[in-house]
């Protein structure tokens, strides 16, 4: 690597990095606050999925606790792809992605910015769905462990989802392609998240849940690292 | 384990299995062969076109 003519210190590079991340998050939230397209779509869709499960699975009291983690994660997964597609379409429609790529900062900052705002949208949807679900089915979901699992699972899902959405938005089939690309590679997240959510809800011992939590954390770390390495190849010609 | 003493007759499944194996291999080979032939034909066509263009 060659040095820039105007030598910049690591510290100023870091501030630039975080400033870009913060700007992208600010921008995404402002746009969303104004149009409310993305969150509305995700929320309505998530509620519909919960509703459909009620009829599809006949959720009587006996069944509920067993299938609750499964229903929650299916809902989050589907709503998540909806959000990812929309969030990337915003960048692609008016060529804004090029505008971001022109900013003098390492491209991983753009990945992180989009990743964190996508994650924020997913977490917002989850925060709304959880109380609604517990009210509708009379299940207490407010367990700190469960919240931790949901956060870890969403991180893993969005880490790889942001990367693949940046890819699928540049193809001919666009939004159809994203779930097809994404679902087979997030299987470990779903397995681990469903299992550990179930563990917390049924009050299993921590030793039983711990392997799943470790798996989630490992997945998160590995896939954030991978996405950082590969993001450049996706946005550059 | 009752069936450990008497060997069950599973030859039908065996025959089905090997049929599937050789069938799949054949399908793949045939697909490779046809793709190869189609490409060769295209190549011939393009070469002729190039010759005509040059002459």
């Amino acid at each position, binding site marked *: 690597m060659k040095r820039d003519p105007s030598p910049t210190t690591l510290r100023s590079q870091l501030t630039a990095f975080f400033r870009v991340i913060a700007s992208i998050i600010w921008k995404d939230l402002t746009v969303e606050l104004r149009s409310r397209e993305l969150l509305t779509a995700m929320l309505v869709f998530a509620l519909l999925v919960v509703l459909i499960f009620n009829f599809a699975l006949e959720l009587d009291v006996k069944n509920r606790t067993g299938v609750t983690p499964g229903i929650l994660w299916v809902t989050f997964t589907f709503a998540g792809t909806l959000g990812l597609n929309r969030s990337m379409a915003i960048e692609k429609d008016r060529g804004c992605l090029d505008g971001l790529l022109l900013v003098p900062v390492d491209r991983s900052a753009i990945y992180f910015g989009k990743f964190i705002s996508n994650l924020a949208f997913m977490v917002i949807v989850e925060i709304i769905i959880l109380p609604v679900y517990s009210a509708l089915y009379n299940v207490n979901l407010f367990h700190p462990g469960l919240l931790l699992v949901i956060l870890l699972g969403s991180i893993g899902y969005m880490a790889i989802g942001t990367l693949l959405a940046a890819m699928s938005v540049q193809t001919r089939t666009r939004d159809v392609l994203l779930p097809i690309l994404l679902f087979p590679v997030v299987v470990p997240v779903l397995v681990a998240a469903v299992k550990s959510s179930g563990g917390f809800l049924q009050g299993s011992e921590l030793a039983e849940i711990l392997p799943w939590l470790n798996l989630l954390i490992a997945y998160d770390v590995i896939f954030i690292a991978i996405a950082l390495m590969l993001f450049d190849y996706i946005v550059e010609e | *384990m009752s069936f450990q003493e008497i060997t069950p007759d599973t030859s039908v499944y065996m025959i089905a299995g090997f049929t599937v194996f050789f069938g799949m291999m054949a399908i793949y080979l045939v697909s490779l062969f046809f793709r190869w032939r189609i490409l060769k034909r295209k190549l011939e066509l393009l070469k002729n076109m190039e010759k005509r263009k040059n002459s």
Partner: protein
Amino acid sequence: METRPFGLRILDAVTVLLLIAATCMVFFYAPREAAMGEVQRLFYFHVAAAWVGMLGFVAAGAAGIVYLHTQHIIWDIIESAAVEISLVFFFIAILLGSIWARPIWNAWWTWDPRLTTAAILELIYIAYMMLRQGIEDPDRRARFGAVYTLVGVLSIPITFLSIRLFRTIHPVVIGTASEAARGMFGMTPPMKQTFFFCFFIFTVIFADLFWNRILLGNLSKKIDQLRYRLM
């Protein structure tokens, strides 16, 4: 590269002969397994096909890394060839596994970690094919293909781990739980010899198909080049 090189023709012939030899060995040399009967003979080809699938999987991942590093189109051709062969052979392995499982476990499908992982890998490969189909520009197709291959290659071991963990915590095995029924039969020496012979033969089959498929990819690239020149 309009005609296949002499070496490849010889390899083709050798491969066919070896496959015939392997088939004979499976039928006539390997003894009948007492607990499962004739269907156990599928085991040799089943495992060997999965082995070829694994070879293709590793080759695709390696080619993906090299492509992203060098950006040379030949590595993209190699990568897609490896994916295609791996797709076919994992599919064969899954089918043979199912047919084997039916009389033994009384079910076509068990959610065994290896079997499930293979099925998920098939889905990743299909997604890979669809991704490539959706991109016009050959450079971008190659880049995205390589990126997705790498994502798949890294997620598969974790998937396998997670499904195995899933099974160990919930030890509900469909069908009988006897050792024999789970496929862990003791192999007699002739069985072992057949097994390793099949492994070897299928590696040769892999090499032969891989070579052929790479030539096919090369030919297709050449045609695109020629067509572009004529336009």
